[in-house]
């Protein structure tokens, strides 16, 4: 599903590459944690996958498409197939939970018949069917993140990318959110979660990719966050 071949990413004006010679293959339906301390290149990694950044070197294939050499007008099509979740939720404050999710479908031109069918369904999946008329500031952090996950998943993408999705949440809520990602993963969706939540990673025993200073230092099936220091 995701094939990363020898990518290096160097930001302009910086001497050290943010990502250095990384090779990773992620299969369809996998659940992968991307771990490492702040500034290790996790976010850069995710931004490369949605082509917000273009690597300095190397190739990235998503579902067989070469996204490094992809034409600019094709990028939206790529992004429709990847759902993104962020630490700060990125919800629109003047829209209800329902409208926030519906917005993602509206702007890619889905007919309203489909929107009316899919939005309640995905809100039910994330457990927010009762809160669909609430505005973000009326929702708890965990609930806001569920809305954001619903928005990422409503178009049934093949891949979900999450960048520190539990960074602002307490441990119990974080557990719920991870359970939700697990549920989504069981529908056959490939899930990649960047996190530095050690407890979560250790509990779930999924594949772990560990980054340090831009280098992939470990790729472990049923792994843990890190070796005890």
């Amino acid at each position, binding site marked *: 599903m995701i094939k990363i071949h020898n990518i290096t990413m160097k930001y302009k004006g910086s001497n050290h590459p943010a990502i250095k010679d990384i090779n990773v293959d992620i299969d369809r339906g996998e659940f992968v944690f991307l771990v490492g301390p702040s500034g290790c290149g996790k976010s850069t990694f995710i931004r490369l996958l949605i082509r917000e950044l273009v690597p300095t070197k190397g190739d990235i294939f998503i579902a067989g498409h070469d996204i490094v050499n992809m034409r600019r007008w094709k990028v939206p099509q790529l992004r429709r197939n990847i759902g993104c979740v962020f630490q700060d939720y990125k919800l*629109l404050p003047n829209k209800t939970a329902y409208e926030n999710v519906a917005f*993602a479908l509206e702007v890619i031109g889905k007919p309203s018949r489909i929107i009316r069918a899919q939005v309640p369904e995905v809100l039910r999946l994330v457990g927010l069917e009762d809160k669909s008329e609430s505005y973000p500031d009326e929702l708890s952090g965990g609930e806001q993140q569920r809305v954001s996950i619903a928005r990422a998943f409503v178009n049934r993408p093949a891949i979900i990318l999450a960048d520190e999705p539990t960074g602002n949440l307490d441990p119990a809520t974080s557990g719920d959110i991870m359970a939700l990602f697990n549920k989504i993963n069981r529908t056959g969706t490939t899930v990649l979660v960047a996190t530095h939540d050690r407890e979560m990673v250790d509990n779930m025993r999924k594949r772990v990719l560990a980054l340090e200073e831009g280098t992939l230092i470990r790729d472990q099936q049923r792994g843990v966050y890190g070796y005890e220091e």
Partner: protein
Amino acid sequence: MSFRPFYFIKESLKSFRKNWIINIAAITTVALSLLVLGFFMFVAFTANSWMKMTEQKVEVVVFLNDGVPAESVEAMQSEIMSWDDVRKVTYVSKDQALERLKKEFKDSDMLSMIEGNPLPASFEISLKSPDKADDVVKRLKGRSEIESIRHDRQTVERLINFTKMARWVGIIFAGLLAFASLVLIANAIRLAIYARRKEIAIMRLVGASNWFIRWPFLLEGITQGLIGALIAVILLSIIQTAINENVKKFLAFLPNGLPTQTYYQLIFALVIAGIMIGAAGSALALRRFLRV
């Protein structure tokens, strides 16, 4: 698929309400610049049609001495007629001249004071081009049959200069103002982009097509240009009516404003110019502030 008019119109209206001051400013400058452009074009067109009218009128009038025999008159007429610069020569006899005078002053009792016929016979010479008047006058001078020569060269020249000036002043002023309105529209669009940056970020994230993101802003700029143009057109037609009515009161011989067809062409050109200014302004803002 990515062009959905109602969605875009809704979004444009929303953003207009949010930033109405800068939007009004942008529309006002568009209106002002097109009004100036339109006004000077109107003046230039009018002056042009005066000029055409003057060109068709007599440009050189040659007054003849009394008692020139008919054969010499005829010979002279055909000689003048044979010159390259001359388009038409009309002979006006003493009787015809008096006849004309009577017609022009038929309501006045001035005529009763005239005894006999003091008016001279004349040739009215119209030229192919008004600036050839000098040559013709030079050639005619000094002939014994001729009493005096009158020509309207200066008037014509002034009219030509005035038209040219009106055109240039109009183009320069309108150009400056158009540039100002372009910048203001770009600024209004920039604010609109800034106000919706979160939505734009999410749109990009979920894969809205680039044109889907751009359209509302482009449409907003075009609408501003269009509204500005319509205001300019309305003001211009008010001004034109006012000028026509007042000028006609004391200069009845002037042509009646612009021909309808020219007037519609002018309006059409202004509306197109407004739309282009709007589109260019928003394109400028999109290029600089909306990297999709």
